[in-house]
């Protein structure tokens, strides 16, 4: 693509803008969503971790 033509430069920037804005919206949403999903998983396994600690108090003390 020759950058000497102003229309082509404009078209190129519109194309880049479209690509990056779609990626930004989707990837930010996916990142936040995956963070929340992992937090939900952690909250689910936390009670289990506590009960394991209660079952093995000596293991906890050794640390």
């Amino acid at each position, binding site marked *: 693509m020759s950058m000497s033509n102003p229309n082509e430069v404009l078209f190129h920037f519109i*194309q*880049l803008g*479209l*690509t990056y804005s*779609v*990626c930004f*919206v*989707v*990837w930010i*949403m*996916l990142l*936040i*969503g*995956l963070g*929340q*999903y992992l*937090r*939900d998983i952690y909250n689910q396994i936390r009670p289990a971790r506590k009960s394991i600690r209660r079952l093995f108090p000596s293991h906890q003390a050794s640390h």
Partner: protein
Amino acid sequence: MSNQVTIDAFTPPEIAEHMENIGVKKANLDFWSMITLAILAGSFIGFGAELFTLTVTHSGLGYGLNKLVGGFVFSLGLILVVIAGAELFTGNNMIIMAWVSRKLTLGQVMRNWTIVYFGNFLGSLGLVLLMYFSRQWTFADFHIGATALNIANAKVNLSFTEGIVRGILCNILVCLAIWLCASGRSVIDKILAIIFPITAFVASGFEHSIANMYFIPMGILLRGEPNVLAAAGLTASDLVNLNFHGFVLSLISVTTGNIFGGGFMVAVVYWFIYRRPENFKARFKNGQIANIFLELFQFNRSNKAGKSEQR
């Protein structure tokens, strides 16, 4: 009369409510049901893709008609998904509607998408292996395999922007097919509602991330077959991008486009038209747009929860 029987299609506001409720049900499925249904959906879409490959090989039709017939038979995939029941990632992008209505959290949406995407991948790969071992690609003097190879090679040679834009356009049509399906009451209604949007997206050459999970791995397997290469008139140097790296890059761009097209350009748009809350306009006018987004992403709630835990 409340118990009046009707055969009229559901109206768009009824479809919108129905889609929200379906989204909640889908997101609350247990892990094993969800992954099994997702594996089924991956293989169903693979069957559509396989039939497409077979049909467009040496059909003797012109370019447009050939694509049209290919698109028509590809509808098999979504018909199986909708009528037989399965969890398809691209269709599940519509779950966003239940999220923006605050019936689901973003974490629940992401749980569904992650499990379903992985399950679709497993289902597609399983079908690729079965099709490869069936040696169906040797039919018509290896020209079935040559068509599969050409399709896969064209898909991995798309630029990033092309992948995103074709992904957006594809999932607009797929989610519109799902939307139209929800308006139907009978199996025939649903099948007819699926055929035209799916034919349109396949014939137009748009990109479907789950279909690509069949097409590209099939091409990667077939690139090592000399007879297929000879039938396609290709050499190894023509297929430099047809590898795992090209597959992953293609999936990233097409999946991003699919999420944007289905989730934002269909689900959110229809939510805004039919399901936005009464006070949305007033809050928008009062400059509370930032609060709306923060609530949606649960930043306010998690901060409050964090503070109460600290106390």
